[in-house]
């Protein structure tokens, strides 16, 4: 177990190193010149060169990357070119909002997805099952900016149940969480359905039915706990999908998280912020996968860590 963990942590670090190298190289190859952006339209070529020197951007790629890695080890992600403030500070100030949205989204997707999957499994082969599966398919395929704008228009503008974007109260959280959750709910509904069907075929369920247990008791006391565990283990992997989604959803709802920060930085070619958010997201994904792997054997003893 310890050896396995150690190996996985080293693998994860290598993945992060690779991500940083690839992102850094891609941004380095970008034809955009950050120095000219900083220097502005009226700057003389001397001013431009002066700033380039100060930022160390006249150094060769390898040197620049090395400097970046060294400061990264001390938790320094550099200074934003456009915002002129510490990237770490910008990300830290926005992380709570993204984490809150993540919690809201996970609650939404579990609530909707598990319920749908459960009903579909019980009503297997019926019209209800098919309708739910089509709905889950739509949920998985619908672009999030469309879902977001639709929800915003119907529930915030037309019905005024929720505020039109923004951040602060639980009411602000509902629509963006739902938008994020609908995507995940589709996946969970499908997984839950097949997992439940699997469990319902097991001998102990047949035994329970044979001894005359009520349908509800069989479902919720015997089948559900067994069916739900492998599904729950997927939450770690979910973080990856989530990190992709926040960029769109946070922008639509004006949610002040790191997704919005990334979107703005991409539009303004603010390289240090793009680097920083990419690394933080990669870290979250790697961590999520690691957790999913570690948790799996506790949930399902058939899985062994080697």
């Amino acid at each position, binding site marked *: 177990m310890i050896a396995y963990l150690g190996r996985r942590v080293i693998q994860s670090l290598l993945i992060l190193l690779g991500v940083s190298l690839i992102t850094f190289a891609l941004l380095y190859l*970008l*034809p*955009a*010149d950050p120095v*000219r*952006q*900083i*220097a*502005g*339209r*009226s*700057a*003389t*070529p*001397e*001013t*431009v060169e*002066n*700033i380039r020197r*100060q930022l160390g951007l006249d150094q060769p790629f390898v040197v620049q990357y090395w400097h970046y890695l060294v400061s990264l080890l001390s938790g320094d992600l550099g*200074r934003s070119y*456009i*915002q*002129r*403030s510490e990237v770490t*500070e*910008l990300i830290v*100030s*926005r992380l709570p*909002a993204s984490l809150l949205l993540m919690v809201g989204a996970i609650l939404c997707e579990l609530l909707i997805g598990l319920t749908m999957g459960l009903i579909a499994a019980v009503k297997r082969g019926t019209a209800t099952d098919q309708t739910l599966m089509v709905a889950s398919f739509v949920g998985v395929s619908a672009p999030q900016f469309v879902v977001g*704008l639709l929800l*915003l228009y119907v529930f*915030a*503008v037309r019905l*005024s149940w929720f505020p*039109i*974007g*923004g*951040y602060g109260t639980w009411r602000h959280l509902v629509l963006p969480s739902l938008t994020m959750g609908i995507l995940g709910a589709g996946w969970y509904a499908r997984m839950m359905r097949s997992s439940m069907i699997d469990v319902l075929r097991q001998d102990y369920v047949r035994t329970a039915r044979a001894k005359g247990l009520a349908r509800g008791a069989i479902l919720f006391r015997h089948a559900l706990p067994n069916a739900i565990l492998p599904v729950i283990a997927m939450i770690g992997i979910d973080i990856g999908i989530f990190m992709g989604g926040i960029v769109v959803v*946070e*922008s*639509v*709802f*004006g*949610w*002040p*998280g790191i997704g*919005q*920060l990334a979107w*703005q930085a991409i*539009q*303004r*070619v603010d390289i240090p912020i793009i680097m920083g958010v990419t690394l933080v997201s990669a870290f979250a994904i790697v961590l999520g996968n690691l957790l999913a792997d570690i948790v799996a054997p506790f949930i399902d003893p058939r899985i062994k860590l080697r």
Partner: protein
Amino acid sequence: MKKFLTSTVAASALVLMLGMASARAEDAVDPNAKQGGAITVTYKDDVATLDPAIGYDWQNWSMIKSLFDGLMDYEPGTTNLKPDLAESYEIAPDGKTFTFKLRHGVKFHNGREMTADDVKYTIDRVTNPKTQSPGAGFFGSIKGYDDVAAGKSEGLSGITVVDPYTVKFELSRPDATFLHVMAINFSHVVPKEEVEKYGADFGKHPVGTGAFKLAEWTLGQRIVFERNPDYWHKGLPHLDKVTFEIGQEPIVALLRLQKGEIDIPGDGIPPAKFQEVMADPEQKARVVVGGQLHTGYITMNTTMAPFDNVKVRQAVNMAINKDRIVQLINNRAVPANQPLPPSMPGYDKEFKGYPHDVAKAKALLAEAGHPDGFETQLFAMNTDPNPRIAQAIQQDLAAVGIKASIQSLAQANVIAAGGDKAGAPMIWSGGMAWIADFPDPSNFYGPILGCAGAVPGGWNWSWYCNKDLDAKAAEADSVVDPAKAGERDKMWSAIYDKIMEDAPWAPVFNEQRFTMKSARMGGADNLYVDPVHIPINYDNVYVNDVQ
């Protein structure tokens, strides 16, 4: 160059006149204005910085103007210069020495009085390469600038603190734009102790002398400005509070405006909703339309065949159907025929420009040796409406036989291609077009049409360099006497007329501004399309539902 002030009598008369002008400006507070109340302004993007030495986008430009003041300013809603932190100024007969008398009792937000030392510190700081100010180049005419820019000196030798309320600027050449330079944000006065306290983070902790002071900045969410009760200009500002909500898409901002939740959508009316808003009389009544110091143009690389032939460039000018392009963007602009926008001094009203004439364009191409046209590339920025405009240009060019393929790229990539001599034959400037830093005709020349800008990484994407016009421009800028401004404007008109003869650009349109406001907002319309405060002049507007 003619001398314009030969006696000290004339000079003192000038000073007297300006002193009176400033007294008038101070009285110019809207008598109907109501005191108090708060407004909410929304923006999509984070505010980059509120440091006047650094901030250089249209979002923070007006915000910085409300937190800081310069020696000079403009009368609200106009392009007329007036003394601001300066009480009066004096220009020496040779046009190379400017002496400013400062207002007494002006206090920074930290309570300390502002003096001439702060003015000198401010300009020394902004020109120091360590500050990395995008505005350093504006101060190039002050003596000692080259030494500071090269890192050889820490301060400009041309600035002298005569006494706590007098500061003198000596220039290395007469500079007619110098009073404008003293009005741009980069010269807005900052207190040394606060800059040193916060270092590189001063932009997040701004302390100035302005009408408002920063009360709160929650990163990524909101910025709150509070009325500065000690503001030297009595009666201003009218509002107690301005809240900027950050991270709101323009479409969401419009919905919130319609519900009465906000007062100004800072990013304007989203193009997709523009016609809908303008078709509704109730909403249209709350839209203020104004000119903008902006021109959208097509550059043609004059060093690249076939655009090295003036006839080809003239043919392109005649091929473009500007009216159709203006329609394409829902009439949010007016067709242009010269580099200067109509609201800019020096705009030539008599100038007719090139007509849209396909037959004549074809004839010119034939004369230039391209009877069957040629193939070329048109670079454009990839955000709406620019690809659509590029397509319209492509069709217009095809009608005269020029087959242009469109290179639709991110802004930074287009800028990079333009700054490379062999990079781009044609560029549609949309999304990157020149917007004047200050309302003076010279501001449309140097970096974008003069030889100084025709360098790698420069903004003169036509690579047009006419030494003769450079000399004429220098001559016009040496006419410093404000009384001869009309004469100087004429000199500039002639320069731009000559440029259009050489046709390095095909000017396409001048964007108009459409500021939408809530029903409760009051104040003259020109405050909502103020040429130097975008979107609005926060200091002078007010709300009607207080008291």
